[in-house]
């Protein structure tokens, strides 16, 4: 398949890479219908994210159609249209059970490396270095989704790709940023770097971007 691969600072290439395969019975493979470039992908592009390797497929704002489902995955079926969260979560561990999906204890195979740098490891992420799982990202024709019975959300046909794609990251991220502020009537909220995401209407920004 074709994918966008990182080869170093300011060096992205559109290349042929191996097709993803089901590796675990809970996996699914999606055929990507739309993907976006996140402001945080620019950190990778600019070469400031540690743990990247030449040829890594990046991208973590992705949606598509399910084309293959692992034998233990009872939630998805071929043909489902889904948006995939950028965070990979098992749904069963201490953190997932408490709703802290981005703290999943089981989705980062590079957990020992991450713990050395950060004390403990967070969840694995799509396309975001070999500190966070080395999972091939979604700026590609196809993507393998681990724990696909937990992460992907089915979306109705009447909504366009562009209306739902940002559920993968920047819409919930902007929403969370505002929720953290516990906003009350009359409050003044200052936001550095605006309009990354779906929400000027609700007054929310999102994800990271060079600015400020």
């Amino acid at each position: 398949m074709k994918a966008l691969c990182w080869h170093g600072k300011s060096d992205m290439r559109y290349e042929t890479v191996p097709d993803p395969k089901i590796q675990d019975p809970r996996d699914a493979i999606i055929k990507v219908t739309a993907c976006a470039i996140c402001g945080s992908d620019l950190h990778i592009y600019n070469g400031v994210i540690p743990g990247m390797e030449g040829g890594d497929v990046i991208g973590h704002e992705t949606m598509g159609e399910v084309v293959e489902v692992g034998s233990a995955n009872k939630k998805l079926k071929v043909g489902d249209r889904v948006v995939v969260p950028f965070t990979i979560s098992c749904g069963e561990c201490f953190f997932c059970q408490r709703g802290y999906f981005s703290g999943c204890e089981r989705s980062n195979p590079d957990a020992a490396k991450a713990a050395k740098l950060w004390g403990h490891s967070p969840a694995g992420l799509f396309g975001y270095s070999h500190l966070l799982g080395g999972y091939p990202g979604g700026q590609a024709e196809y993507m393998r989704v681990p724990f696909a019975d937990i992460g992907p959300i089915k979306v109705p046909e009447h909504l366009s790709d562009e209306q739902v794609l940002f559920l993968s990251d920047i819409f919930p991220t902007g929403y969370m940023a505002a929720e953290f502020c516990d906003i009350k009537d009359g409050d003044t909220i200052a936001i550095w770097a605006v309009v990354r995401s779906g929400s000027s209407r609700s007054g929310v920004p999102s994800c990271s971007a060079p600015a400020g």
Partner: protein
Amino acid sequence: MIAIDTVPERMNMAKAAGANVLDFMKEDVYERIQDLTSGRGADACIDAVGTEPHTTASLDSVIDRVKVATFMGTDRPHVLRQAIHCCRNFGTVSIVGVYGGFLDKIPMGSAINRGLTFRMAQTPVQHYLPKLLKRIEDGQIDPSFVVTDRASLADGPDLYKKFRDRQDGCIKVVMKPEA
């Protein structure tokens, strides 16, 4: 809402949404926020920038740049420092911009003495999905308004450059494999 940026297209979007817009390349961010909050500071400050702020906007961001280039530092937290200073006593600093390592010269004295709350995370997306999908379905919000560039996946390498360099008002890129 006070929106701090310098990219004209993004500032226009924020203005259209009713925000007070502040260009950090042309104005003193701290002084403007003081003016807008009767000298008290903002109730909450959101750092959506993270580790790569604009490098010439202030002296401390130039120093950060040099330190990272010489392997003496891992991140360039200019925005976080400024957000702390601009936040009112007992206010909240909300961080969704991404940082990677060890941040230098964070004004913890300011934060502790004035009772600030720090909240931050890589988003637990799954937690938010059902309610935010419902908002889209109910027509309360249509996040597609941010999209400025549509292209095929094959054009990706050029789009990365265009997005990074903010060429032609590029704010958000969506690609399709078969476009």
